[in-house]
């Protein structure tokens, strides 16, 4: 059987990206949360904030390491797997990645050292500064990478000669039209994801009656965040969709399962898109509502897939279902936020066990929504890798398919094992929870660390403190 190098390269890219984004989704939000905890600690002097900050810093360290190593892989994959892409748009896209390295990666990677290991070397205020810089670095990193990605979705500020893109106006390149909302949507997604993990952790401990004071703070802070940000995400997402309608109409049609643009557009709630027959099977739809949402007019119309030549149409199935999954999760998140806020207002947040049980299961929701959202975005832009300039099929490297197949298998196995174990470790840390009152910070480093290991009996002491055998 002939191996399909293009397909293998795409699967490999999708796999490595999907693993990578799990970690930024969490570390972008968590670094900001840790900075807030540290600030609260310095302002109020309450030990519980310190132990919370230290607890989440441990979790952060493990997650961040996985984010870094999976990210480095990606930065080289542009060359290894998409070398024609690197030449065709390198003049425009590469500088954006270059700026990301210079303004974000060095910042976060360098101050990470102080944030994690500086506790017995520098005053607490400097830890706060380092944590804030790390948080800033992660957000700047998102800025540049999403700028590059948005330019690929709808390129502006360039000209194409002989198939190669040249920059003309950098401001237009960096701020291409789909960028502002994509950046806002992604940052909000990251903060939401983290908030749900924080709330779930707090809820688990409250339900088990452990670390009660710290757990209450986690639940309260997280729920407050969700109550504000989840509805905001709906608004941002809606506007983001309007951008899609304007700049990538074929993607929007695929997301909506919309085939025939000559009729008033319904809102398809469910169906199974059938590309061969150019319609949805088993469709459940609300007439006219789609037109209202997209064209903002009852009976409004927007282009359907039939208006695009088959060779310019994206696959429909994946964007269609992934979009419904994302929006579905978004709605559940809004409910979680509003119900939580209502309970909080009535001072029943910590007693409502049903709510805590519900929240304790919500931790994966942000990750799922983010994966779903990226699937919509990336599959929906096919068959282009850079809309109008370069088709995915023309972007590949001159590498034999067997090499790609071999490395794909290696990625699959190694990522599953390494990141699987990593996620297991993170979970173990979360279950253990914060260690109470460690104001003797200077001598007492982050638990289970070298002093413990080096001094005989040290580890036993720490295990005893953490309630481990």
């Amino acid at each position, binding site marked *: 059987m002939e191996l399909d190098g293009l397909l293998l390269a795409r699967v490999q890219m999708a796999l490595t990206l999907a693993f990578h984004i799990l970690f930024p989704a969490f570390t972008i939000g968590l670094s900001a949360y840790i900075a807030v905890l540290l600030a609260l600690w310095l302002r109020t002097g309450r030990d519980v904030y310190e132990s919370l900050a230290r607890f989440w810093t441990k979790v952060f360290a493990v997650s961040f390491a996985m984010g870094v190593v999976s990210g480095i892989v990606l930065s080289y994959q542009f060359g290894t797997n998409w070398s024609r892409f690197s030449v065709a748009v390198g003049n425009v896209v590469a500088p954006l990645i270059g700026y990301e390295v210079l303004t974000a990666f060095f910042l976060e990677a360098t101050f990470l050292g102080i944030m994690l*290991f500086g506790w017995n070397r520098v005053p607490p205020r400097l830890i706060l500064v380092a944590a804030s810089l790390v948080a800033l670095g992660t957000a700047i990193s998102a800025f540049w990478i999403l700028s590059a990605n948005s330019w690929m979705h709808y390129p502006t500020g360039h000209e194409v000669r002989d198939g190669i893109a040249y920059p003309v106006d950098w401001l237009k390149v960096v701020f291409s039209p789909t960028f502002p909302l994509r950046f806002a949507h992604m940052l909000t997604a990251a903060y939401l994801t983290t908030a749900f993990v924080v709330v779930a952790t707090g809820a688990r401990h409250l339900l088990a009656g452990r670390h009660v004071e710290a757990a209450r703070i986690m639940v309260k802070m997280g729920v407050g965040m969700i109550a504000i940000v989840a509805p905001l995400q709906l608004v941002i997402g809606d506007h983001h969709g309007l951008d899609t309608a304007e700049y990538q109409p074929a993607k929007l049609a695929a997301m909506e399962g919309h085939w025939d643009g000559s009729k008033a557009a319904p809102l398809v709630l469910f169906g199974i898109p059938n590309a061969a027959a150019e319609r949805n099977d088993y469709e459940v739809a609300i007439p006219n509502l789609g037109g209202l949402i997209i064209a903002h007019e009852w009976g409004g119309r927007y282009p359907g897939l039939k208006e695009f030549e088959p060779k310019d149409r994206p696959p429909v199935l994946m964007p269609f279902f992934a979009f419904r999954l994302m929006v579905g999760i978004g709605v559940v998140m809004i409910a979680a936020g509003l119900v939580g806020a209502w309970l909080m207002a009535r001072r029943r947040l910590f007693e409502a066990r049903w709510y805590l049980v519900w929240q304790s299961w919500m931790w994966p929701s942000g990750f799922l929504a983010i994966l779903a959202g990226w699937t919509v975005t990336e599959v929906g832009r096919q068959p282009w890798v850079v809309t109008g300039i370069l088709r995915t099929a023309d972007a590949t490297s001159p590498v034999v398919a067997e090499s790609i197949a071999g490395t794909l298998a290696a990625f699959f196995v190694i990522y599953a094992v390494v990141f699987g174990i990593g996620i297991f470790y993170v979970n173990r840390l979360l279950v253990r929870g914060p260690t109470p009152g460690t104001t003797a910070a200077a001598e007492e480093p982050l638990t289970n660390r070298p002093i413990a290991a080096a001094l005989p009996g040290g580890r036993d002491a720490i295990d005893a403190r953490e309630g481990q055998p």
Partner: protein
Amino acid sequence: MEPYLPVIWAGVIVVAVAMYVILDGFDLGIALLFPTTSDEAERDQMMNSVAPFWDGNETWLVLGGGGLWVAFPLAYSIIMPAFYLPVIAMLLGLVFRGVAFEFRWVAKPSHLPWDIAFFAGSLVAAFCQGVILGGLVEGVAVANGAFAGGPFDWASPFALMCGCAVTTGYALLGATFLVMKTEGRIADHARQIAKRLIIAVLVFMAAVSLWTALSSERIAERWFSLPNLVWLAPVPLVTALVGFGVWRSLERGGEMAPFAGTIALFLLGLLGLAISSYPFIVPPSVTLYDAAAVPASQMFSLIGAMITLPMVLAYTVFVYWTFRGKMRPGQGYH
């Protein structure tokens, strides 16, 4: 300014690569020394001596790769597919060693697998870096501006030897770093190892130099024709002197000097390679000028680099300064 942009960018990339090789070299090297002790406390201490730095160190690799793409997209698009397998093997090696920094502590007391991952990941990464370097010096098959060879073109005896050479060099950097940063048993132990490694490194450097000169007319001509011979003769001479100095200083109990000397050896090696390769960025056919991005792109990125790189260097120094001084047994940064 425009005609100089490719040369300036080549300089920036050489600096990034040099920073990477030196900085990540010593933390990969420390991992390579893991099997020389089985004592848990010693291993803790070895890992701790680099834990606050490794991520920043590795970022220079991202800058090296990213910078190559920014400034020389054509070279990037040829080199990466040409070294597809070693590049990906290197990245996967770095996955193991990177996560080991954190996983090892969380896994305790069952951390042995992560000790092994730390060592093996670093070994694979170091070896692949050497192979890529060697393969690049030997040359890459190019047709119509794209890589035109097979998946195992890089696997020549010379490249494999370069893999061993770089691995040995990193181990020396790691050992001399430990001599500088630790004391007690572990420092003595590192000193003993370093004394043997310095000899191996000098042998490798000589072998690599002679092999390149003998196998390539272009390179032989660069070094041995007059007046180049006169101008370039100091490079190998200084290398030999520095090598001897490192060895002497190790014998006499020097603490900083062996590390500094090893860095100098690496820089000299890099200088030698640059002299052999210039003006090619992908020997033997693609020059810096062929591969350069358009001036508008090189300029845009250069402005950013000129503003941010000094800041990066400043806070890198700040972090190293924060964690300055010797680590005593049992003392961790964590």
